[in-house]
């Protein structure tokens, strides 16, 4: 995609993601001719989608349909309309496993289940497989720190004999996609957080000077910016390569950089940054929740370290 087309797409996505109202993101993207755009340059298109989503702090669910699409391409077509339930933890004993022929589910869905069919990652000896099929379930808004996102807590049971199984690579592809998409979004939110804090420190005066002229704040914001730029680069590389390792590193870096950017920005804002009236909390609460999807940065940090130790191999990321 050339620069001019990219700028045009970015501008269209800003309009699409800022559109008020109930219309689904899928419908809005369809109007934009999204499938054609993806067919031309899917990597750039998807990267831009999540970048702009973070930039304008959109709560629309862009990830759910992409993940269901992966399940549908690897398994039965019904997967496209089924709801994916993410486990509460990717590192510890998975919440979902087959016991006495039934699968008990406790997890988070990115949107309220539309049909009575779920996609659930289930741990087994050969890795994590996806179970797709009918389920008896209850769901309630997750709320959490960011009710705007519309996440849903799902508890369900499925009969193992009634489900279709998809082997591990589909789940691995979904994890990689989820991680790079969230990494791009988190980096974009963090970028917004730093930029807004910089703006504030130029305007806010204490001791007769803009507070941004004090090195104590300059250094904090400069350090935050450096982390965010680094994380953003790795996130875009993860989108390009589609590689699971790069996506994990990208999600780790972005989660950490975004949390750090929020901390530095909040300190720069002082008391006003703790109010509901100020816009900052929307980014803080969003970062807090997005970091916890597909593995929080602290969990991923441990996983990255363990993998490096176990394999004795330090993979190269892109051209870095």
């Amino acid at each position, binding site marked *: 995609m050339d620069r001019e087309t990219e700028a045009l797409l970015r501008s269209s996505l800003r309009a699409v993601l800022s559109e008020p109202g109930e219309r689904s993101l899928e419908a809005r993207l369809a109007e934009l001719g999204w499938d054609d755009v993806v067919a031309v340059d899917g990597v750039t298109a998807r990267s831009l989608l999540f970048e702009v989503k973070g930039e304008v702090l959109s709560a629309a669910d862009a990830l759910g349909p992409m993940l269901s699409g992966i399940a549908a391409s690897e398994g039965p077509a019904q997967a496209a309309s089924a709801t994916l339930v993410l486990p*509460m933890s990717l590192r510890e004993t998975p919440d979902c496993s087959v016991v006495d022929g039934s699968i008990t589910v406790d997890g*988070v869905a990115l949107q309220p289940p539309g049909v009575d069919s779920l996609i659930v990652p289930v741990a087994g000896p050969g890795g994590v497989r996806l179970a797709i099929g009918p389920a008896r379930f209850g769901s309630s808004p997750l709320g959490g720190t960011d009710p705007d996102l519309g996440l849903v807590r799902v508890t369900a049971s499925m009969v193992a004999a009634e489900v279709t199984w998809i082997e591990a690579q589909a789940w691995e592809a979904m994890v990689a996609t989820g991680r790079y998409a969230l990494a791009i979004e988190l980096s974009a939110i963090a970028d917004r957080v730093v930029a807004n804090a910089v703006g504030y420190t130029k305007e806010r005066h204490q001791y007769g000077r803009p507070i941004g002229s004090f090195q104590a704040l300059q250094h904090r914001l400069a350090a935050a910016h450096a982390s965010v730029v680094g994380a953003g680069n790795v996130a875009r590389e993860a989108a390009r390569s589609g590689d699971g390792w790069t996506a994990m590193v990208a999600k780790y870096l972005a989660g950490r950089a975004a949390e750090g950017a929020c901390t530095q920005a909040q300190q720069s804002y*002082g008391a006003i940054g703790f*109010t*509901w009236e100020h816009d900052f909390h929307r980014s*803080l609460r969003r970062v807090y929740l997005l970091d916890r999807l597909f593995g929080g940065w*602290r969990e991923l940090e441990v996983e990255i370290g363990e993998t490096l130790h176990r394999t004795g191999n330090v993979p190269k990321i892109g051209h870095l």
Partner: protein
Amino acid sequence: MAAARIGGSGMQLTLGPEAEAFRAQVRTFLERALPTGWAGFGALDRDEAAEFAIEWRKVLAEHGYIGLTWPKEYGGGGRSKVDQIVLSEELVRARVPFGILADTTSVKMMGNTLVRWGTEEQKRTHIPRIISGEEIWVQGYSEPQSGSDLASLSLNAVRDGDEWVLNGQKIWTSSGMVGTHIFTLARTDLDAPNNHGISFLMVPANAPGVDIRPITTLTGVAEFCEVFYTDVRIPATSVVGEVNEGWKVATSLLGLERGEEAATNPIWFRAELDRIVALARERGLTDDPVVRNKLAWCYSKVEIMRYLGYRIVTQYVKDGALGPEASISKLYWSEYHQEAAQLAVHLLGARAMVREGRRPLRFFRTDEPGAPNNTNSWIDVFLLNARAGTVYAGTSQIQRNILGETMLGLPREPR
């Protein structure tokens, strides 16, 4: 003095026979006053806790434990500042509050200010009412344009006959919704340099022209207020200390407050660390080397905080003044607390997405000792309490400037 001695069993701190006798007396009182198996104030839900604090405050007042150091002629306990430190320590250890939240400003700040600076009439009028809880005083220092640079404040007070007329705005008044009175700093001489020309004034919250509006915090709870003054008239006798000398009045309180904090902070943070260790066990993460490393780090910090506290208290008891360690204290605990709160939410993992259980009983420092290890307690401590700690009562940046310039003797930052 406090006998800090190194013996076979390690360092011990005692505050002298009189204070230790008083400690025994307080412990006996607490054993009798609290139910058997008392799990701590933090174990109550929000409504129960609010009710308990009010009732408990009455019990403390009846036994002379509110205003312990204040002269008996005004209804105080007439005891020493060391005894106050002992009392604060024992209350925190027994997991009970020292009053309602607003007593942080009402008793600790305003009460002590009046005892130190008030006129005879001011003391007789207000101190007994502060002790009984009939008057609840809240603080009005910060302004929208005067935060770290508080001395630039611009709430204007003009003398008109026997009255002061106030116009302007204050902000970040904690517990502003429940206050019956406000102590505030106003500019009474426009020509004087920054921290001169400021007076310490007493304003009834229901005075005509006072408009108190709650501010909602990022966790959705209204904890502090902004206060607007429009032609508010108060009697000329509402000044505490000398006119134009309010800065001196406002900054004179640090001693006792820091002494108490030095004794109580380590207990609060240790209670919180015990909850974090319990959380690591509950989550099955005690074998994780990163978690173990971080827990050990937290433990070492809390222990250092404890010994730092011993030093501060020892110095205070010996000289009646604070040593250089006191300046480190605020920076130390507030920066530590952000790391500890971050560890707690990381231990919760993806569970930290779900809000469950009651929210913290207060929005500063730790949740109360005895608090349940639910996600709501930790999410709010992480998002609000811990992060706000490095901002209120002097940001970490201001604390570091003070340390650099006054303790290390570095050149002043250009201002």
